[in-house]
């Protein structure tokens, strides 16, 4: 018996030139954890909105085919009817949480169904226990962190014990630890309650190991539907941007791709290709790590923070004597869990905040791109937002973009437009361009191709670049140096190969599969390392 059945579903948003979904047929059974993969605009979110009835009841548009959710045809039953059978979690937890306290938020879906008081109270307690949020029940929702809010929103989606849960990039606003916890939790819920879970995600390396199935979407169509292994087989050939780094590593070594670090390591071990963890850094030519907080010479630095403290009036200390300097042309990644002080540090660099102690110096203008690019967009046409030179720098110089409304652009395009705005020289004069470019979580909700494009763009800039991010794969693609922050102070400062290779959460999938050997972070470096050790091994053997 299926929980979700789509039969030849074709759907177009109102006024859209092309359908968002085209002839999609999918069946999902109870307890299945299905990952939806695809580039931005491939139809993942639309498919989820078909499942919860928002398409077509909320969005309008043209709908053809049939969608049956828990026995209800979505042409006859709207989101209100489906709410008892489908729980939904969107990307931004801020707009999903509507009540004042966590307890009231969890109770709302049950109260909407006129459940009796004891059933509401029991449901709230049970879901709070299941998600480990019992201690939050009396807290105000307006005072929760992003990770806590996302858990509460998940609790509200689960409290009615739905047969299907659909999640649209639920980990995009979470740090790696919170993201992994959420995925593990979903797996457990599927197993314990036989709840079917459909998860749209870009960070496939995090969720594919837990999935029963993966569906690859392309241009609104289902391009692949199979086990994670079959999906990676398909992606390695047909859609490399959807293959995980681990899959690229294995494919590069001539092995069949598998999902997950453990399976990847097992595949390498079975083939006798797992390198010795103790391959020294000197073998790879990587220099040694600098100690945390070590200061460079100030005379060549484009940005220097000198023993910067930020203490909130009657509140916590956010930055503790941070000393960081970044040279012109240097690309630095700022990593650390949520609340470590990354965004605050960037705001100090750009002059949006003043330190309570210490000094911030820069050799010129500091451009800062904050987390939400839409906040920068205020005009009616793209061409009015930034100079032609700046638009061309970020790849939006094409005449097709010029007259479009900025809010109609895709997420990745908005990000690039906002980057063009902050990179633009004063009065459109690129000679007065920024000396330092700071970006706060620029890859949230971006697919891998967009991330690669952004990394390439950052590598072309002459300015000092400082990027706060949770994404180790993105760091491996652009950064020359990584600063790891914890509790407002740098705890590590060095080359990416030094800081990221040996860790678990702040490490790339390639580094985790290879156990940190050689300090390699990217699949191509991993292939070179393994091939190199094979060659030297055979030479020794000969």
């Amino acid at each position: 018996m299926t929980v979700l059945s789509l039969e030849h579903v074709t759907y177009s948003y109102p006024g859209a030139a092309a359908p968002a979904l085209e002839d999609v047929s999918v069946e999902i059974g109870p307890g299945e954890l299905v990952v939806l993969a695809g580039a931005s605009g491939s139809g993942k979110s639309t498919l989820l909105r078909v499942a919860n009835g928002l398409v077509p009841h909320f969005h309008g548009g043209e709908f053809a085919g049939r969608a049956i959710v828990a026995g209800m045809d979505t042409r006859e039953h709207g989101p209100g009817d489906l709410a008892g059978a489908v729980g939904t979690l969107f990307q931004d937890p801020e707009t999903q949480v509507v009540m004042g306290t966590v307890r009231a938020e969890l109770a709302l879906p049950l109260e909407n169904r006129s459940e009796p008081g004891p059933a509401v109270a029991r449901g709230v307690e049970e879901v709070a226990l299941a998600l480990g949020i019992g201690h939050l029940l009396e807290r105000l929702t307006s005072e929760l962190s992003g990770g806590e809010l996302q858990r509460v929103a998940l609790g509200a989606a689960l409290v009615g014990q739905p047969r299907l849960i659909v999640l649209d990039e639920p980990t995009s606003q979470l740090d790696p630890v919170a993201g992994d916890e959420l995925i593990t939790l979903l797996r457990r819920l599927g197993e314990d309650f036989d709840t079917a879970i459909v998860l749209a995600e870009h960070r496939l390396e995090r969720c594919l190991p837990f999935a029963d199935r993966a569906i690859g979407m392309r241009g609104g169509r289902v391009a692949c539907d199979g086990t994670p292994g079959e999906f990676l087989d398909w992606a390695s050939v047909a859609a490399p941007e959807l293959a995980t780094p681990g899959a690229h590593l294995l494919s590069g070594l001539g092995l069949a791709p598998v999902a997950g670090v453990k399976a990847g390591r097992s595949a390498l071990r079975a083939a006798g290709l797992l390198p010795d963890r103790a391959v020294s850094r000197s073998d790879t030519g990587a220099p040694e790590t600098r100690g945390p907080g070590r200061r460079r010479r100030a005379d060549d630095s484009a940005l220097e923070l000198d023993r910067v403290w930020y203490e909130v009036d009657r509140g916590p200390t956010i930055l503790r004597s941070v000393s960081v300097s970044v040279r012109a042309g240097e690309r630095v990644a700022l990593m650390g869990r949520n609340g470590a002080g990354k965004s605050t540090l960037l705001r100090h660099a750009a002059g949006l905040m003043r330190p309570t102690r210490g000094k911030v110096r820069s050799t010129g203008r500091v451009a800062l791109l904050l987390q939400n690019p839409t906040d920068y967009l205020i005009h009616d046409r793209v061409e009015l937002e930034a100079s032609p030179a700046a638009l061309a720098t970020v790849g939006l110089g094409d005449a097709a973009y010029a007259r479009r409304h900025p809010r109609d652009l895709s997420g990745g395009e908005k990000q690039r437009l906002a980057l063009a705005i902050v990179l633009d020289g004063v009065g459109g004069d690129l000679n007065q361009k920024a000396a330092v470019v700071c970006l706060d979580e620029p890859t949230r909700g971006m697919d891998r191709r967009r991330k690669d494009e952004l990394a390439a763009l950052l590598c072309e800039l002459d300015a000092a670049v400082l990027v706060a991010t949770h994404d180790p794969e993105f760091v491996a693609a652009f950064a020359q140096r990584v600063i790891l922050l914890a509790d407002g102070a740098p705890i590590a400062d060095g080359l990416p190969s030094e800081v990221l290779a040996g860790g678990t959460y702040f490490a790339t999938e390639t580094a985790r599969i290879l156990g940190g050997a050689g300090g390699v972070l990217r699949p191509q470096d991993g292939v070179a390392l393994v091939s190199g050790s094979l060659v030297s091994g055979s030479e020794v053997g000969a």
Partner: protein
Amino acid sequence: MIYRRRASPMHAARAGATCAYCAGLAIAALVLSAPLALAAVALALVGAAVGAGVWPQIRRAALFALPLGLLVMVVNAIVVRDGLTVIARLGNWPVFGQVDVTLEATVAGAVLGLRAVELILCGALYTAAVDPDEVLRLFRRFSFHSALTATLATRMVPVLARDARRLADAQRCRPGRPPSRAALMRAATSGVLDRALDVAAALEVRGYAAAQRPRRGWERQRPYSRHDLAFAAAGVGIPVLAIGGRLVGWARFSSDPALHAPVGVGGALLAAALLACALLPFADRKGIE
């Protein structure tokens, strides 16, 4: 200003009782006009704010309300021609003509201003000390959708304030001349509409459209605590005292043609009774966590 659960008798009482308490104080402020009685209501409000542990929030509201009260007093003194005791001759003003400020009009304006301040403080006390989610539960029996919309509006205030701060920060990051106010307003409006759409979608998938009037006895029965009873009693007692005091003439006040505000035993008793009725519920501090 937002509601935050605190260890106070008022926070420990159910929303129905504390709503009645705030409404009682507001009714007293509206019904009474004798300065002594209004002063008692003002003192009661300050005492309630201190007792509920929300004095900092109420003080902020008072700082906003006091200039408004003063404005009411000044406008009344200039516009109203009642009263015999002229305290200032301001000459001939355009539109107004000869402006003579009388003591009676000034005092009447002060009474009006004090009343306005007290009404604002009643609202502030309600916002800071009455759980909006519980109010939603209370009113959902009558009009669920309206109650939820009101709750949502309260919840959205800090969210929109954060959005506004984010937008302002982003604009500070734009190089060159700052954008025009019209462009900013347009961007802010678009942002708010986007936010509204997202919230509407979230409500839809939570079953808002299919929400039904709750069945009788749907809510878990909660026994009435001492605090529930005390605040409910005060919520009834305060307006009864105010209306009764006015009917028996203990709160008489007139400002035309001359000031007449006798402070007799009755007036003093009424003020004392109002204060006692409003503050006694705070005396019992057992079981307030």
